C-alpha cells in the first residue's frame, strides 16, 4: 500500500476533479444508459434470432419426418434446412452477424446460398453500425477515456502546477501511473457494473447451466476488454504528458481515436477488397457448371465418363443391360454425380475463400498497428460472429447436405427396383421409417482452442502493445520535462 501511496493520491485527486465537471458527468451517465440499452437490444436480438431459428429448425425436421413413403430421391429434393444459431456471447458482440445469411436450403445436386441476412432486409441504416456492448466498450469508452485524460498532465503544465508537483518529490513515473490509475478508476465505475450485468445476463441466457468452453470465452472476453481499456488510459496520459498545451493533447488524441476506430478499419479492408477482386456469383456458378460438364454429364447417356462406369458394371456383373443389375443403377450414377459435383464445388469454394482470406489479410496485419482491430477480431472470434464462424457454418451445412444426399442415394441403390415402372403403375417408394435415419442438422460453434488459434495475430498484437506501453512509460519518465 505504501509503495503506491503517491500514485493513489494523484488518482484520487483526478477522479474528484473529473466529477466536478458536469459535462463529463453527463457523458458518463449517458454512456451508462447506452450500455443498458445495448444489453437490452442485444438480448432481444439474440432471443428472437435463436427462437426463430430453433422454431423453424424444429418445424422443418417435423415436416421431413412427416413425409409419407416415397422414392428416396424425391426426399433428397425435398431437402433440409440449416438455420444458424447464435452463441450467448453474441448478445454483447454482434460482429458480422447482420451480414450472415440465416438459412441455407440443403438439397441434392445443388449448393444453395445462405439467404435472409438482416442486412439484405434493411435500408442502409445498418451500415452506420449497431449499438452493442462491444461498440460501447471498444469505440465509445476509448473516446471517453481520451476526453477524461487529455487534460491530465497538459493542463497542469499550462497552469504551472506541474512544476510544483514535481518539486514536491513526486517523480514522473509516479505521476504517469497515478494519472493512469485515476482515469482507469473512473472508467471502472462504468466497466465493473457493466460486466456484472453482462455476466448475469449471460448466465440467465443459458439458464445457469454453463459449459467450460463458454465460461472460458466469457472470461477472456472480459479480461481482454479490461486490458484494452487500460491501455487507452495509458495512451491518453502519455499524449497529455508530451503535449505542450491541453488543446494539442486533445486534438492528437481525437486524431488517434478517429484513425484507430473509423479510418483504418474501413480503409485497410477496402484496400484488400480492391487489390484482390472476388468473382461475381454468376461467374462463380458458371465456372462450376463448366467444370462439371468437363467431368461428364450424368444425364447424357453417351457421356464417356459415365459410359465407362456403365460398361465396367455390366462386365463385372456379366449382364447385358443396366436393368439386369442387382441394384438400382440410377442411384449408383447419382452417387457418382454427387461425388463429382461436390468435389468441384468445394474446389471452387476453396478458391473463393482464398480470395476472401487475402482480402482480409490486410486488416489482419494492420491489427499490429491498430489495437482496435485486434480487439474487434478477438471479440468477434470469441462470440462466434467472425468471418471464420461463418465459413464454418457453411461448411457444416454443406457436409450435412452431402451426407443427406448420399444417404438417399444409398437407399435408392438398395431398395428401389431397377426396372422402370410401366406407365400406369404407382412409382416405387420406400417406407417412411427411413427418413429418421438422417439425423437433424446441428450446428456446433467453434471451440475456444480453435478461436485462439484463428486469432493468434490479434493476441500477439495486444501483448506487443502492452509491452510497448510499458517501455514508453519508462522512456517518458526519464525524458519528460516540466515545461
Amino acid at each position: 500500500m505504501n509503495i503506491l501511496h503517491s500514485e493513489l493520491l494523484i488518482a484520487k485527486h483526478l477522479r474528484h476533479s473529473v466529477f466536478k465537471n458536469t459535462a463529463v458527468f453527463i457523458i458518463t451517465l449517458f454512456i451508462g444508459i447506452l450500455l443498458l440499452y445495448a444489453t437490452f437490444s442485444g438480448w432481444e436480438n439474440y432471443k428472437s434470432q435463436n427462437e426463430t431459428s430453433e422454431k423453424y429448425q424444429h418445424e422443418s425436421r417435423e415436416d421431413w419426418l412427416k413425409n409419407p413413403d416415397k422414392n428416396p430421391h424425391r426426399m433428397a429434393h425435398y431437402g433440409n434446412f440449416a438455420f444458424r444459431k447464435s452463441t450467448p456471447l453474441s448478445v454483447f458482440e454482434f460482429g458480422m452477424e447482420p451480414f450472415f445469411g440465416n438459412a441455407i436450403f440443403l438439397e441434392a445436386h445443388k449448393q444453395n446460398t445462405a439467404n435472409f441476412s438482416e442486412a439484405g432486409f434493411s435500408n442502409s441504416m445498418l451500415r452506420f453500425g449497431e449499438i452493442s456492448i462491444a461498440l460501447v466498450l471498444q469505440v465509445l469508452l476509448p473516446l471517453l477515456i481520451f476526453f477524461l485524460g487529455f487534460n491530465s498532465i497538459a493542463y497542469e503544465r499550462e497552469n504551472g502546477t506541474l512544476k510544483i508537483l514535481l518539486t514536491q518529490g513526486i517523480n514522473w513515473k509516479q505521476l504517469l501511473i497515478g494519472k493512469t490509475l485515476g482515469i482507469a478508476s473512473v472508467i471502472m465505475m462504468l466497466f465493473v457494473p457493466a460486466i456484472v450485468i453482462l455476466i448475469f445476463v449471460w448466465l440467465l441466457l443459458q439458464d445457469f447451466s454453463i459449459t467450460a468452453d463458454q465460461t472460458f470465452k466469457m472470461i477472456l472476453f472480459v479480461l481482454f476488454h479490461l486490458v484494452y481499456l487500460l491501455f487507452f488510459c495509458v495512451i491518453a496520459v502519455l499524449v497529455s504528458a508530451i503535449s505542450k498545451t491541453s488543446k494539442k493533447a486533445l486534438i492528437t488524441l481525437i486524431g488517434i481515436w478517429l484513425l484507430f476506430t473509423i479510418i483504418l478499419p474501413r480503409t485497410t479492408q477496402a484496400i484488400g477488397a480492391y487489390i484482390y477482386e472476388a468473382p461475381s456469383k454468376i461467374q462463380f456458378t458458371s465456372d462450376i457448371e463448366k467444370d462439371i460438364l468437363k467431368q461428364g454429364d450424368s444425364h447424357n447417356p453417351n457421356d464417356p465418363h459415365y459410359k465407362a462406369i456403365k460398361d465396367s458394371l455390366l462386365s463385372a456383373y456379366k449382364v447385358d443391360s443396366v436393368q439386369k443389375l442387382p441394384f438400382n443403377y440410377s442411384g449408383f450414377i447419382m452417387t457418382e454425380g454427387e461425388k463429382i459435383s461436390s468435389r468441384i464445388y468445394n474446389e471452387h469454394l476453396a478458391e473463393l475463400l482464398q480470395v476472401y482470406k487475402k482480402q482480409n489479410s490486410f486488416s489482419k496485419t494492420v491489427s499490429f498497428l491498430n489495437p482496435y482491430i485486434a480487439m474487434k477480431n478477438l471479440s468477434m472470434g470469441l462470440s462466434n460472429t467472425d468471418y471464420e464462424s461463418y465459413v464454418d457454418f457453411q461448411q457444416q451445412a454443406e457436409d450435412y447436405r452431402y451426407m443427406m444426399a448420399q444417404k438417399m442415394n444409398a437407399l435408392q441403390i438398395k431398395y428401389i427396383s431397377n426396372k422402370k415402372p410401366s406407365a400406369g403403375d404407382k412409382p416405387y417408394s420406400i417406407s417412411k421409417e427411413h427418413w429418421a435415419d438422417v439425423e437433424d442438422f446441428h450446428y456446433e460453434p467453434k471451440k475456444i482452442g480453435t478461436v485462439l488459434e484463428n486469432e493468434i495475430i490479434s493476441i500477439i498484437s495486444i501483448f506487443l502493445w502492452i509491452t510497448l506501453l510499458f517501455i514508453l512509460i519508462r522512456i517518458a519518465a526519464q525524458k519528460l520535462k516540466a515545461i
Partner: protein
Amino acid sequence: MLSLIFKNFIRSKGTKIGLLFLLCIGFISLLIGKQFQDKQIHTIEQARVYQKEHIARNAAFHKDEIGLLLYYIKFSLVNKTLPINSLAIGQRDVNPSIQNVTIRGLEGQKYDAELNNPNNLLAGNIDFSFVLIYLFPLLIIAFSYNLISEEKESGTWKIVATQSQNTFFYILKLFYVRILSLIALLSILLFIAVLFLNIPFDTSLFVFYGLGILYILFWFAVCFFIVSLQKHSNFNAVILLTIWLFLIIIVPAGINAYIVTKYKVPEALELTLKQRNAYHEKWDTDKNETMEKFYKHYPQFRTYKIPADKEFTWLWYYAMQQMGDDESAVQSRELESKLQQRNLASQSIAQFIPTLHTQLQLNEIAHADLGNQLLFLKETSKFHEKLRLYFYPKIFDNAPVNAENWEKFKVETFSDNTKISFAKAFVPLLLFNLLLIGFGWFNFTRKTV
C-alpha cells in the same frame, strides 16, 4: 480583408494537409467506385454470354421434351445500375443486381443471396458518399471549432475587435472562406467523377450535388451554432466530436435497432418452409385436387387435362410447382409489406437526422436503397410470370423444342423509374440549416463579441 482572411486560412499547414487528405481519399473513393462499376458491367456482360450458352446447350440436349428443358434453363433479369451508383454503392453490394430464375416455383429462388465476404460488408465501402457523410464533417469541425475561441485564448481577439467595424461580419467572413473551400473541393471531386465514371449531366447528378452542398452547409451551421456559444476551444472540440459521433453512429444505430425489433420478419423463414411443403406434398395428394386449384388460378388452361393412364405429366408437375408459390403467397405478401414498412419508417425517421437523411437520399438517387430492391423483387415476379405464361401452353402441348427460337431469350433489364422529389431531398436539410444559423445568429447578437 476577405483575401487576407483567405490567405491566412489557406496558408496554415493544417488546412493544406486536411484539404489534401480529403482530396486524396475522395479520389480513392472514385477508384473504388470505378472498380465497382467495371465489375457490374462485366457481370452483366457475363450474364448475357452465360445465358446464351446455357440455353443453347440445354436446348440441344433436351431436344425431345420442352417440359424437361424448362426444368433446367434459367433466365436473367438485371437491375439496371446507374453510373451515379458508383458514388453511392448503398445496398447494391449486399443485394444481387441480377436475378436468375427458372420457371419453376419462384419463392424458392427469389431471395437467393449475393456472394460476399462479410468482412467487406462489415467494414463498409469507401465510396464517395462515405467521404461526404463521414469525412467532410470532420474537416469542417477541424476548420471551425476554434474560430474566435482560439483568438480569445491567445489574446489576439481584442486587436481584431478593435480593428474591424463589425465583428459579426468578420466571423461570417471566416466561415465564408471555409465554406467556399470545401464546396470547391466537393465540386472538383464531383467534376472528376463525372469525367472518370461517365456520369451523365441530369437531375440525379444535380440533386446529388445539391444534397452534398446542403450537407456541407449543415455541418457549418452546426459549427456556427457551437462557436456562437463562445466557449473554450477544448469544449468546442469535445462537443462537436460528440455531435458527430451521435449523428454518424449512435443515433442511426439506435434507430436501426428500433426498426429491426419493431418490424421483425419471421415471415422470411416461414415462407421458405411453406413453399417447400406446398409443392412437395402435392406428389402424394390427389392429382385432380391439384389440377383443380391450378385451373382456378389459370382458367385459360382448363382445356389441358392430365391423361388417366400416365403417372407423370409435365402439366401436373408445373401445376405442383405453381402451388408452391400460390400457397405461400400470403407469407410472401406479408414479407413484402413488412419490408415496405421498414423502408417507409426509416425514411420518415431519417428526415430528422441529417446524416441519415443524406445517406438514404443519395442511395435513393443512385437506385441502391431498399426501395429499389423491393421494386426489383416485384419486377422479378412479373418477369417470372411472363415467362410462365409464355411457356405453359408450349409445355402442355409438348411443342417441339427446335420450333422455338431460343436466341430471342436475352437477358432483360429492369430500370427503376422512381421520380426524384426535390422537396423530399432538400427541405429537411434546409430547415435544419436555417434553424441552426438562426440560433447562432441570435447567440451572436445577444452576446456582443
